């Protein structure tokens, strides 16, 4: 067995390491927003709708990530528009869009003549085949997301918490919601390569739930999510290498294990505090 640090000699491992770092940053920040605003289901809909774009791009001979990005952003803005109007039963509309996207993707891929693309890597992800091109965009997204949240943190927070109050104070509620839901879509699409369409929602929720064991402050929740997300995806990557199992699944497993460990630690802290108080 190779030494752990020796792995960094390999280019694929360097790339995978950077991918897990960028994924942890964008998913940590955007996931905290998703969890705080309770739009996990909407995010699931965007994720699966984007598969339609993957299929269409294959059919047209374009980059599948580009197709997924276009589909993802449009479905995100569409869902946002419908919920703004408020006259559609939002959850059923999302469910239709969710399955329609998947169906379109499968149909387009089936119609594509000749080369049959590796669908498995889109459904379940593979962090070790992330390309330089993917990595570049993941890095750009991570940096943009950090910048956007640092510059506009309070505006984002106040609009997400009480949009009516924000509207009354003439904050650009619709503009910010549109930018943020587009960021949600881009984060999902660019991280599909890492854990796949089926599993990407976990990168957006498990680190956040872990962080919220320790804090109920949005800013700290973001920081905690990034840290737990990075520990999880990096350890998942190692696990995947040594046990020779798919990286997407091993990352999710690592994230859940971290959650369980943190839950036990939290219980331990609470129990000790309780004992102290009683003594």
């Amino acid at each position, binding site marked *: 067995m190779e030494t752990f640090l020796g792995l960094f000699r390999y280019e694929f491992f360097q790339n995978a390491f950077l991918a897990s770092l960028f994924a942890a940053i964008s998913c940590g920040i955007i996931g905290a927003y998703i969890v705080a605003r309770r739009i996990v289901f909407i995010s699931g809909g965007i994720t699966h709708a984007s598969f339609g774009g993957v299929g269409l791009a294959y059919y047209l001979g374009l980059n599948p990530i580009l197709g997924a990005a276009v589909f993802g952003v449009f479905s995100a803005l569409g869902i946002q528009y419908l919920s703004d109007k408020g006259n559609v039963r939002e959850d059923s509309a999302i469910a239709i869009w969710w399955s329609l996207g998947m169906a379109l993707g499968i149909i387009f891929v089936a119609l594509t003549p000749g080369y049959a693309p590796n669908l498995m890597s889109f459904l379940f992800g593979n962090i070790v085949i992330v390309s330089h091109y993917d990595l570049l965009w993941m890095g750009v997204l991570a940096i943009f997301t950090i910048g956007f949240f640092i510059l506009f943190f309070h*505006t984002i927070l106040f609009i997400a918490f009480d949009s009516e109050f924000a509207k009354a104070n*003439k904050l650009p509620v619709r503009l910010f919601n549109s930018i943020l839901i587009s960021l949600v879509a881009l984060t999902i699409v660019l991280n599909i390569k890492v854990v796949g369409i089926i599993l990407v929602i976990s990168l957006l929720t498990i680190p956040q739930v872990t962080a919220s064991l320790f804090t109920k402050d949005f800013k700290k929740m973001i920081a905690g999510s990034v840290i737990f997300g990075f520990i999880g995806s990096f350890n998942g990557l190692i696990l995947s290498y040594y046990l020779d199992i798919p990286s997407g699944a091993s990352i999710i497993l690592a994230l859940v294990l971290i959650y369980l460990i943190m839950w036990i630690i939290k219980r331990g802290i609470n129990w000790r505090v309780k004992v102290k108080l009683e003594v």
Partner: protein
Amino acid sequence: MEKLVEIKNLTVAYENQVVLENVDLEINDLDFLGVIGPNGGGKTTLLKAILGLVKIQNGQVIFPGHTSGVGIVGYLPQLQKIDFKFPITVFDVVRSGFVPGKSLMVRFSKEENKRADQVLEEMGIAHLRRKPVGELSGGQMQRVFLCRALVSSPRLLILDEPNTYVDNKFESELYERLRELNKEMAIVLVSHDVGTIASYVKTIACVNRNLYYHPSNIITAEQLTSYNCPIQLITHGEIPHTVLHTH
């Protein structure tokens, strides 16, 4: 007396259903107006029209000397619509009251942080400063939102049903505090609990699609009927002739 808000011939409709029709109202400095009326009669819509939150079909809401109510008006919304589990601290909720007049890259000055702490102190909840809103009781939540409305020292304070979620003790405390605040600012208070607010407000507006302004806090059942303002009256024993009266 300085005029703060002037509503002229206001009509508001949701999907072809008219909620407010040809409403006229003036709110002057140091007014204390109680807004009463049946559920669905348009009380909240009237407030939202003042705050610029609903589309106006016809008429105007004017803030003499200002382009909008931003920075002049402090608002305490109904708390049902607030997500109590949202990860935000009490201190940040209160500071969000400073948003009017700031750029989108919100930063808070030392004075503003001090002012936020001062308001929390005055409301008796300074110890809750770092708590997430999810850990508060209904009464504490109301206080936090009142702090948010007051932190920017508004000229007009608007409260929508502030007595939901709270116990009787806090309710009377709240009304006493409003009486104090009324020495410095105008107050508009929406309530379904006519009997309780009557002794605190100075004037009454009955809202039921139309608005009838009643320039006193004593109102009789006959007047309510003539104002087309059927409201459930909580009475004890004999139904009194005068339903609202200074206690």
